């Protein structure tokens, strides 16, 4: 087989076609201090400045050798646009929501000029730059946050989760609003040049909610979002998503990103028995293997992931920024051992 370009390889893997080797990407954030130093583009400036953001994200290709690049690094753009007050983590950490802007019961209007709020313009500009500079070689991924998860940031997760159990119907209007926010952002990202949209719905994790609440309050909005977008959508949910893997696939998403705690052969079997061919992405534990392990440990996990039937290799969740480049590169090196 001829050597595919990153773009061909990524799209073929999403479509279930044969590939010269598995694509290696990172579905979630993977900026590291190493890349920041080499590229001379560091946090916190790279959260605000489109050029620096794009430069740091380009390390996914130029330094790590991945088949895709992605922005943003944090999970706070939509919430910020709704008025959440952020706290920055300086050079070392990601911004987080410091003050949740609303209480459950409040009337919330969709922010007019949503796309010009906070750091969204910089994020969109970074996608334009990435598309221009590396978009002919690698896939440009734009990351948004799932509706169920954005809504948790508006109120604070404790009150939100209790309400999700006691009176889920109270939350519906808010989640609808957040779905609109994510979809609006995703469409603007596509217009700016994003080839693929990643939806991180981290609060819809089984570490947080039951399959029942997932089906009532998260699933429908993921599905609406997937249907509204003109490019392939990858859904990422943290933790053991085994009980809902078939549901996620039924949103119609192009692929599912899973953590290493998910039983891959069983998940594939469950999908197959429903006639679903949704590719699974993952295989590498970001903390145990990438952050604390050695390149040999990474190789072992990637080989295992390939044997288990994953369609793309990726860390199962966000990469700790202090992770060494050698470990991330080992993902690509191992995938290349299988080059046809």
């Amino acid at each position: 087989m001829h050597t595919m370009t990153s773009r061909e390889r990524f799209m073929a893997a999403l479509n279930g076609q044969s590939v010269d080797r598995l694509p290696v990407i990172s579905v979630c954030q993977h900026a590291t201090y190493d890349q920041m130093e080499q590229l001379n583009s560091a946090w916190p400036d790279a959260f605000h400045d489109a050029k620096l953001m794009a430069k740091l994200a380009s390390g996914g290709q130029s330094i790590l050798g991945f088949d895709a690049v992605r922005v943003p690094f944090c999970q706070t753009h939509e919430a910020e646009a709704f008025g959440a007050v952020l706290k920055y983590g300086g050079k070392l950490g990601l911004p987080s929501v410091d003050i949740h802007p609303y209480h459950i019961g409040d009337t919330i209007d969709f922010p007019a000029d949503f796309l010009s709020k906070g750091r969204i313009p910089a994020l969109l500009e970074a996608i334009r730059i990435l598309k221009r500079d590396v978009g002919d070689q690698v896939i440009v991924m734009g990351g948004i946050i799932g509706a169920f998860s954005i809504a948790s940031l508006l109120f604070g997760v404790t009150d939100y989760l209790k309400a999700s159990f006691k009176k889920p119907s109270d939350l519906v209007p808010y989640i609808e609003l957040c779905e609109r926010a994510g979809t609006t952002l995703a469409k603007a990202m596509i217009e700016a040049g994003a080839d693929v949209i990643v939806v991180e719905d981290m609060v819809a994790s089984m570490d947080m909610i039951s399959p029942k609440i997932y089906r009532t309050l998260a699933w429908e909005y993921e599905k609406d979002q997937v249907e509204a977008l003109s490019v392939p959508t990858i859904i990422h949910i943290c933790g053991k998503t085994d009980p809902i893997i078939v549901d996620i696939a039924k949103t119609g998403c192009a692929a599912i990103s899973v953590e290493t705690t998910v039983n891959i052969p069983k998940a594939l079997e469950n999908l197959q028995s429903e006639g679903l061919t949704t590719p699974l992405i993952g295989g590498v534990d970001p903390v145990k293997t990438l952050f604390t392990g050695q390149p040999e440990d990474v190789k072992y996990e990637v080989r295992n992931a390939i044997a288990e039937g994953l369609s793309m290799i990726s860390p199962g969740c966000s990469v700790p920024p202090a992770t060494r480049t050698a470990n991330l590169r080992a993902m690509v090196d191992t995938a290349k051992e299988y080059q046809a």
Partner: protein
Amino acid sequence: MSQAILDQLKEGVVNYDEEAVITAANEALAQEMDAHSAIFDGLVPGMVEVGRLYEEQEYFVPEMLMCADAMYAGLNILKPHMKKKEGSANGVVVMGVVQGDVHDIGKNIVRMMFDASGFEVHDLGRDVPLDKFVEEQLKTDSNLVCLSAMMTTTMVGMKEIIEKIKEKNPKCKIMIGGAPVTEDIASRWGADGYARDANNALKDAINMISSLKSIS
């Protein structure tokens, strides 16, 4: 008679029924039941059962949070009546969620168990700067520090905190917890205990309290 009240306390916690717990707690006081026993033989077994239901995926975090509310409703009534020395672990604990991380559910559940056991709790809250843990440990001379993180990007700050605290006070026990934490990482980083989720944190906290109790 008193067993019936203990059962009501336990069931009230399990069924996240705050009203039932409040009624049972008041009844316990009316009958001059030992407050310590009402907490440890009523409320705490309820929370242990909640942990079991969580483990079996019958309960999830929302249920656990509501059970915690019910337990606090009981604690607020019973704790002022606990005799000073009795049952108190005489422990001091510093706890918080590490810098950059705002996920405090697990930490709050663990805090509740410490509150219940009469610990002096210094809760630093969420998104706590790394040095603050070290400072607070020194200031309070706590026997225990609990660090929590839910994100793969924030948990790595724990390593530095553990090193700094152990350097200054090797006797202080450190427990770390949160979804990305593993036993392997806890031991590599020199922590004395670890808990992956709220349920394990609950169990671990109970174990740790009983072990400290037996020392004091």
